[in-house]
């Protein structure tokens, strides 16, 4: 019985050793090239948000959370700028708020003056459908409804330009 104490070390060491075989920054995205999973949510302002209604538009689908500091705070103004500059070229920005409280999320939206559609994902269903592993993550959906690329981490204007221009 007492020898279980030292032996309990082994599984922990095995787990850490397993870590050598993985790269924490390498996130596979098998969804690229596949049709984007449909979803229908209700935005914070009460309006419905569904992917089906956006067919024919280029969709920037951003997963975020108010507790995701600093990355989500860094990219919020970028997203708002994207929405303002690209709206008339057929681009729609949709924010999906994960694992958050409505109050904190709305404070976040007000703080950055976000005017694009932002919806909570109460059961985390959409996040699971898209295989989101953490926030922020952004999917770029083409006019035909397929996911063209994915970006992990905070967006910058340069990233937006590089990912978005080919889809216009």
């Amino acid at each position, binding site marked *: 019985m007492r*020898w279980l104490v030292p032996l309990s070390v082994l599984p922990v060491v095995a787990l850490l050793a*397993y870590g*050598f075989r*993985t790269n924490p920054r390498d996130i596979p995205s098998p969804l690229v090239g596949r049709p984007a999973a449909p979803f229908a949510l209700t935005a914070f302002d009460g309006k419905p948000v569904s992917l089906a209604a956006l067919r024919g538009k280029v969709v920037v689908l951003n997963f975020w959370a108010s507790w*995701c500091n600093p990355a989500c*705070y860094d990219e919020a103004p970028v997203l708002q700028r994207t929405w303002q500059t690209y709206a008339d070229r057929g681009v729609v920005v949709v924010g999906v708020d994960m694992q958050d409280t409505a109050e904190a999320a709305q404070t976040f939206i007000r703080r950055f003056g976000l005017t694009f559609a932002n919806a909570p994902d109460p059961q985390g269903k959409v996040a699971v459908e898209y295989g989101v592993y953490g926030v922020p993550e952004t999917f770029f959906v083409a006019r035909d409804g397929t996911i063209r690329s994915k970006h992990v981490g905070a967006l910058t204007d340069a990233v937006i330009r590089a990912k978005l221009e080919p889809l216009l």
Partner: protein
Amino acid sequence: MTPEIGAGALIVALGLAIYGCAAAAVGGRTGRVALVESAQHAALGVFTLVTACLLLLAWSFLSFDFSVRYVANNTNLGTPFYYRLTAVWGALEGSIVLWAWMISVYTLIVVLRHRRNARELYPWVLSVMLGVLAFFLLVMTLPAPVFQRLAPVPADGRGLNPLLEDSGMITHPIALYLGFTGFTVPFAFAIAALVTGRVGDAWITTTRGWTITAWYFLSLGLLIGGWWSYHVLGWGGYWAWDPVENAAFMPWLTGTAFLHSVMIQERRRMLRLWNLALVIMTFALTLFGTFLTRSGVIASVHAFTQGSIGVFFLSFLAAVLLLALGLLAWRWDALGAQGELDSVVSRESAFLLNNVLLVAAAFTVFFGTVFPLLSEAVRGVKVSVGAPFFNQVNVPLFLGLIFLMGVGPLIAWRRASLDNLKRNFLWPVALGIAAAAVFRLVGIRSSLAVLALALAVFVTATIAVDLVRATRARLRTGERLPGALGGLLLRHNRRYGGFAVHLGILVVAVGVTGSQAWSVQTERTLRRGESTELGGYHVRFDGLAASEESNHFKVTGTFTVTKGNATAAVLQPAKKFYPQEQSPIAYVDYRLGLTEDVYLVLGDFARDGSQATVRLQVNRLVSWIWIGGAILTLGTALALVPERRKAPVPVLVPV
């Protein structure tokens, strides 16, 4: 030639450390004093050689010796001399040198202090210290050779990571490493106790000062790390539950638990097994921290490079744990308790609960840190564990700990009577409740903040009750107030040092509560001359200026901050463009205050200076975190004042 001398010295030091480790162990086993003395000489030799290596490395940096790969990677001709010195430990290889040097210093102090007063334990302590040292020297020789040559020799180096060009980087690693390495000494004593079977209380008494010192430096390292994060990283916070912050926090939690549980062993002969296990865990967690930062297993902002070094650290960690816990299992029968718990309402149980909470906190932090790995191994799914998890689980634990901080020191040993409880806690509890009501009335909405602040008032009141009562007792004997107070503090320095440390922690807790509950921030794009308002401050953008610094290009914004009609400050946040970095580094500017800090980060800007985006934060009570650190320092110093024993009765009988 310098690098070859350095590399050679390291190999000799490695040989000496291995020899000393073995010699001390054999000497301890056979009782041959000559072997132990020989191991002492080896320890002195190792110290001298590692010191020489550190100096040679510093010299390589000062003289821009770019033929050394490590120097070329971490400095360039524009690096000012003080940052060339801190660059010595600015990256992986050099940080190991500093680490090893500190253990060698500690080993030397152990030799000087304990070779006479802990004779049975001493050879094994020396053996363990030299064994740990040998491991780090092995790392410096094989996977992380600091003196490796670079050919062809570049004309200029790559330069230090700009984020490390900060005064915090002089003190933060030093304090943190002094804390990490400091726990090697109590660990060595614990192992010596287990090997020799002298698992009584001697090792605890001997290591008390060491544990407090290591704990203090670890605390200081954490606080300075928070300060660095706050004023350099520019996200306005001081703690992010990053895996590497967690790595330093876990040994702090178990170390804190150990500091408290030893008092029960000293007093009641209980918890022997538990104390040994805590010391082993604390030391193992310091190794785990180094493993985490240097193996690249878990993604983190602090991660050093990857490479074979992770395998070395993991193997050593496994060996240490198996050996130490194996010894523990071997001595299992001798570790039973002699005293037992008399009542649930007693100081023992308050301390026990404190230990349970601290270890629970350490476990949840550990779990949250390795969970991404676990999830990937078991389910093949990548997940990330964010601050909400850590906050949700730990905040209640920490509130409980603060409450116990008030209860533990005053409640009676063994069994607290109703009278004892009333005498000690009536006023503090009443004050705490009254404070909670007042906080509500003045409009604090967050229940968590009200609870945290009321608990702080309660604990402060318990300390005040104790101090007032003890001072009064001395006044009754005819002493004057300053003399009575001073005598009290010095006479019972352990107790009042502990109280002062508690006060420091409370002040830190108030700072954390305030900054979490009341800080506000906004981000605005301003045209020149335009202003914005936040928390009563008006911030006006006055223009941009560009300048060429010794090793980077800098764009500085000027902002005038006014409150009411008076100018509060002119702040100049900047963006620094380093040739070796792809993205610019933000340079934060701020005005610190007792109740609130104004904190500005420059974002994007128009090249002609006509407009700029700025993040403005008004952070509340953050300064109290640093003030708490200062109080903690004073308290530790008081606790470490050598005890003035009653004059020993001279032994006249010839031995």
